């Protein structure tokens, strides 16, 4: 008797959440080399015809697309009109090369140049060049290279998926995609999130190892692709797809309404911001403000941002918020967030080491630049400055003194500024237990680290996932204490960790007395829905 086929699980990174069941359809790239070189004049004409065709196709995509893809496509179109880029291709053709080889060879060199070096943005643009290379090659190869139309509901697998290929695929007919390349920040990921297309990137196996046409489950919640799924997996996925559809419908309806519990209590819902670009897809009317800006995004380009760059970034967020409060966290480097040139290398235990405010106070020059930029942004709207990893009151006092001197300097220079309110992120149990002793203008609970430090379970160790339980009674007790400290001192308390983005945890958080939550942008609708389904504060409190 034949062994039943075992299901094959491939891990990846969930770049755009969602679920799908469908047959795999493999999207293969085309390669140059099949074309027999005609005369240089023939080849030059073939290239020109292919460029014209590519230009027409891109123009049609721009017509149909949205703003995000339009910027990418216009860049590609500009490249097709770049004489400097095309000159070496034409030279190779004049010297006898076939049009496809000449084009592909030169573009390969340019793609490599884009990928070289540590510039994340430029490496991402290598995708666009590759996209263009493929488009022109397909045009040169004619109908042979035209991709077949996939089955309805199919899951697309590819080694690379280019932005223009992404926008020309009919996603109403496809279930989602899994690709080997890419990252959460690549353009295809942004496009997929904007359209709600389930997408896995960084898949651990290449498309050539996948059985074309085989049934698969795309799980872009648990970040895996299950090829040849067993009946139990299919059944469980069907049920989750059903639940998701119900949630999506109600969440969409909920997003622009205030979050009020069934008991009539209003819960303020703020958005977290780790990448300001996501604000373009968020309506300011759907939130009470920004509850956490992770400023690390400014420090990820291989160089430290100067005051102007920081001010600019903060200004944009404050302007977006239209008078609603914006809570900006000072640099929270260290722990699981190393930043070259800022954090210390080789710490034995980085989560218990130089991170957050500890690092900032050790580097007052760097910190001073951020405080200046924050004080300047405070002149434009209500800015709240939140200090991470505060353990003892003197740390917050020191930050307040540094803020004072930054403001004095701005005053002396005649630069517009205001004094932002200064609060603390409560994530160390010592601070949670003694919160009322801190001179904080507000408290915001950082639940990820609070859970990790309270349960002594590293958050990056999957083997400890069960132990790192946000509903551990000790964690809830600490949250209640912070809420009480806020009430007795008359200052605002909110929670900005991952707990606030999980609909199932909203009830317990409201029961702890929290009335303000800061949530990942994609979860706002669902969290509001969870608030609405909650009865209200338990009478026993």
């Amino acid at each position, binding site marked *: 008797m034949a062994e039943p086929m075992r299901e094959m699980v491939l891990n990846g990174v969930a770049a755009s959440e969602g679920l799908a069941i469908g047959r795999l359809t493999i999207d293969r790239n085309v390669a140059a080399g099949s074309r027999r070189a005609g005369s240089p004049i023939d080849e030059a004409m073939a290239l020109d015809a292919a460029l014209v065709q590519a230009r027409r196709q891109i123009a049609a995509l721009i017509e149909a697309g949205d703003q995000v893809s339009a*910027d*990418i496509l*216009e*860049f590609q179109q*500009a*490249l097709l009109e*770049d*004489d*400097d*880029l095309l000159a070496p291709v034409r030279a190779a053709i004049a010297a006898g090369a076939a049009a496809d080889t000449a084009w592909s060879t030169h573009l390969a060199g*340019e793609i490599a*140049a*884009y990928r070289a*070096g540590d*510039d994340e*943005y*430029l490496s991402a*643009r290598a995708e*666009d060049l590759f996209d263009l290379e493929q488009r022109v090659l397909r045009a040169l190869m004619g109908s042979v290279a035209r991709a077949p139309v996939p089955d309805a509901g199919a899951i697309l697998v590819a080694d690379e998926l280019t932005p223009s290929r992404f926008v020309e695929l009919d996603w109403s007919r496809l279930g989602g995609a899994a690709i080997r390349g890419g990252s959460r920040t690549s353009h295809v990921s942004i496009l997929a999130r904007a359209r709600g297309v389930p997408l896995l990137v960084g898949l651990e196996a290449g498309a050539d190892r996948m059985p074309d046409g085989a049934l698969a489950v795309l799980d872009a919640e648990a970040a895996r692709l299950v090829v040849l799924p067993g009946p139990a997996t299919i059944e469980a996925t069907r049920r989750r797809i059903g639940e998701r559809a119900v949630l999506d419908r109600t969440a969409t309806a909920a997003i622009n309404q205030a979050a009020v519990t069934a008991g009539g209590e209003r819960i303020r819902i703020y958005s977290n911001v780790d990448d*300001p670009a996501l604000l373009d897809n968020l309506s300011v009317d759907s939130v009470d403000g920004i509850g956490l800006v992770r400023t690390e995004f*400014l420090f990820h*380009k291989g*160089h430290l*941002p*100067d005051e*102007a*760059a920081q001010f*600019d*970034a903060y200004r*944009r967020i404050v302007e977006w918020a239209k008078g609603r409060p914006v809570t900006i966290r000072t640099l929270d480097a260290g722990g699981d967030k190393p930043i070259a040139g800022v954090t210390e290398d080789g710490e034995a235990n980085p989560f218990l080491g130089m991170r957050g405010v500890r690092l900032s106070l050790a580097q007052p020059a760097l910190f001073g630049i951020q405080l200046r930029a924050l004080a300047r942004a405070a002149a434009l709207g209500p800015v709240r400055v939140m200090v991470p990893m505060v353990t003892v009151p003197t740390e917050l006092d020191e930050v307040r003194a540094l803020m004072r001197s930054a403001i004095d300097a701005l005053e002396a220079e005649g630069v517009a500024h205001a004094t932002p309110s200064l609060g603390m992120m409560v994530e160390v149990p010592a601070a949670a237990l003694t919160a009322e002793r801190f001179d904080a203008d507000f408290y915001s609970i950082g639940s990820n680290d609070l859970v990790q430090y309270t349960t002594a379970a590293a958050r990056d160790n999957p083997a400890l996932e069960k132990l790192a339980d946000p509903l551990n009674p000790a964690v809830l007790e600490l949250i209640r204490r912070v809420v009480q400290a806020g009430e007795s001192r008359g200052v605002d308390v909110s929670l900005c960790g991952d707990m606030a983005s999980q609909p199932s945890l909203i009830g317990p958080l409201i029961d702890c007395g929290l009335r303000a939550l800061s949530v990942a942008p994609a979860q706002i609708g669902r969290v509001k829905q969870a608030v609405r389904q909650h009865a209200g504060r338990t009478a026993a409190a």
Partner: protein
Amino acid sequence: MNGIIAKSWEAFGEAVIRDPTGLHARPAVKLTRRAKSHHAEIEVRAGSAGTWINAKSPNAVMKLKAGNGERLYFRALGEDAAVAIAAMVALVEQDFDG
């Protein structure tokens, strides 16, 4: 095309990029389109020690990797050189919104 004989550039200008993401795809396209709308030969570099490149080539402009706060230098040669430089500087100063 660059000749072998040193050119006598006729007009010069400079402006600082004010965009958190730097000279990314959209501004790069705008910059080259603006450059192409003039007859003059126009070159640009990022920083005073950068290499001059053709401001009409989106591929070359992209590869400048010019970040936020970086100063772009322009030089031009041709009948509308002065007008071209003024237009390039204005575009950068208007945060590429022109």
